């Protein structure tokens, strides 16, 4: 089955670029056949990407000042429930709204999508460097993404707090 990994973020907003940094790390590795990896700065474009056949993993920063650097998959309730987790937003269409739109607009089966997040604090300045704990999260996030591709990572389990 085709797998897609989409890193989302803004590289000049410091830690908000961590999703892109994980994708860059993945690209430096020998990747399994059938895996498509891409980067995205505008989350609204995600809705279009999710019309592609196959399953998709979205990697993005998550605002959570109390758990900076934590790597986890979002649980379904956080993804699709009334109180969706708060991702970084650009003018009203954030990653999770784009995913929800893709599901609402699906003509057949809704897209199979998981979201891997790296917790960050609020970006406060223009810079291209990641802060220490977020930079340290690149490797575990990369391994979690590869585990997802191979089917060895269980998003539900990882979605539990502290997972």
């Amino acid at each position, binding site marked *: 089955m085709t797998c897609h990994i989409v890193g989302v973020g*803004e590289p*000049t907003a410091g830690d908000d670029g961590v999703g892109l940094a994980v994708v860059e790390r993945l690209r430096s590795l020998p990747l399994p056949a059938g895996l498509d990896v891409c980067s995205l*700065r*505008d989350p*609204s*474009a995600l*809705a*279009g990407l999710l019309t592609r056949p196959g399953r998709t993993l979205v990697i993005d920063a998550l605002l959570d000042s109390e758990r900076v650097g934590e790597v986890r998959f979002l649980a379904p309730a956080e993804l699709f429930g009334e109180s969706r987790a708060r991702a970084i937003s*650009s*003018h*009203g*269409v954030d990653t999770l*709204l784009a995913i*929800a*739109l893709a599901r*609402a*607009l699906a003509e057949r089966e809704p897209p199979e999508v998981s979201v891997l997040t790296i917790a960050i604090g609020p970006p406060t300045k*223009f810079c291209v460097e990641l802060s220490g704990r977020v930079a340290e999260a690149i490797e575990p996030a990369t391994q979690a993404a590869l585990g997802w591709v191979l089917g060895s990572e269980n998003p539900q389990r990882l979605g539990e707090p502290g997972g």
Partner: protein
Amino acid sequence: MTRTIKVDFLTRVEGEGALIIRFKGKQPSSVELKIYEPPRFFEAFLRGRCAFEAPDITARICGICPIAYQMSACHAIEDALGVRVSPEIRALRRLLYAGEWVGSHALHVFMLHAPDFLGMNDALEVAKIHPEVVKAGLLVKKVGNLLVTALGGREIHPVNIKVGGFYRAPTVAEIGALAPEIEQALLALEGQLDWLAALPFGPFEREYEFVSLRHESEYPFCEGRIVSSGGVDVAIAEYESVFEEYQVPHSTALHSRIRERGAYLCGPLSRFNLNFDRLRPRAEAAARRLGLTPPVKNPYKSILARTVELVQVLDEALELVDRYRPPEPASAPCELCAGSGHGATEAPRGTLYHRFDIDENGAILTAKIVPPTSQNQASIEADLFAMATSLAELPPPEARRSAEHAVRNYDPCISCSTHFLDLRMEQEA
């Protein structure tokens, strides 16, 4: 008696702010659009920087319309240095600017503004009832991103723009590949015109002084004279002789007015009203199908003006793609020298003015940047003042929703100047 309606923050608007409406008896006495985003001092930290850096630095003012900042900065610096670009570079700039308008307008029309008219909270609710509308919106938005990526190097904060032109001109094949996507988006958009025309706009109208650029033959992007429905007709270099910024106590963002006259309106409604005769036939046909003829004084119909502009720029983009010849060289030669230059272009939200004074080493001495949202703040307040009595008669949640809707008519980008909205209605003793 004090009536307070409090909202944590306004969604679907960029930036942070608040709105206070005060009453004496049943009559509104004041409206304050409070912008409390901290000022970012771009004009100050441009001083001393090389003039060639201005487009990339000013682009950081806004993630939604960075090209507007790049274009206004390029035009102002080129004006100061006496640089003239080739017709091929000019055409490529129009195509790039079209990409930004398409992305920005599609997002606002279909994702941010349309839910207001349906009493819905967001585009997700619209998608469940009118999926074809949101699909069309996403398709059009995608083309905006494709255009900016192809010409600018990436979809947000493009890196291929410089004073004098571009670092690299795309190949004919790269540009040609965009044509089917643009045509598909245009057809999808035209398929939604009847749906958009049927939205409930209400009877509200107000007398505005409309301000925009006007070009001798084209719908305005980058050049022309600054004109108004009240008789203003000046060269871009004379902007500051007609318009002035002023500080108000309740906002960190400067307001703007026509000297000795007052508030004015810039943006899609103004461009449409002042440049209807510059629309391309396909856009004019769209306007007629939408029932839109100038002068349009109902600010809620700005969603229709944006839609006409979407047709306009997508149609022009098709032509520019078809006629594309890579500019050689990709940029005009530029040498740093002392001078002063002015630039004004039409950002999606309205006229964006830049002035730079440069010393003999090419360092910026002074920079003045007047974004469209700043220019429209007084007009937003005037709209809300005119609506205040009816807002006061509504239950608090509906009053908040109506006020937010009125503000979103302007697609304000508050972080440019200025997220909104904490609404309070106060009764003065």
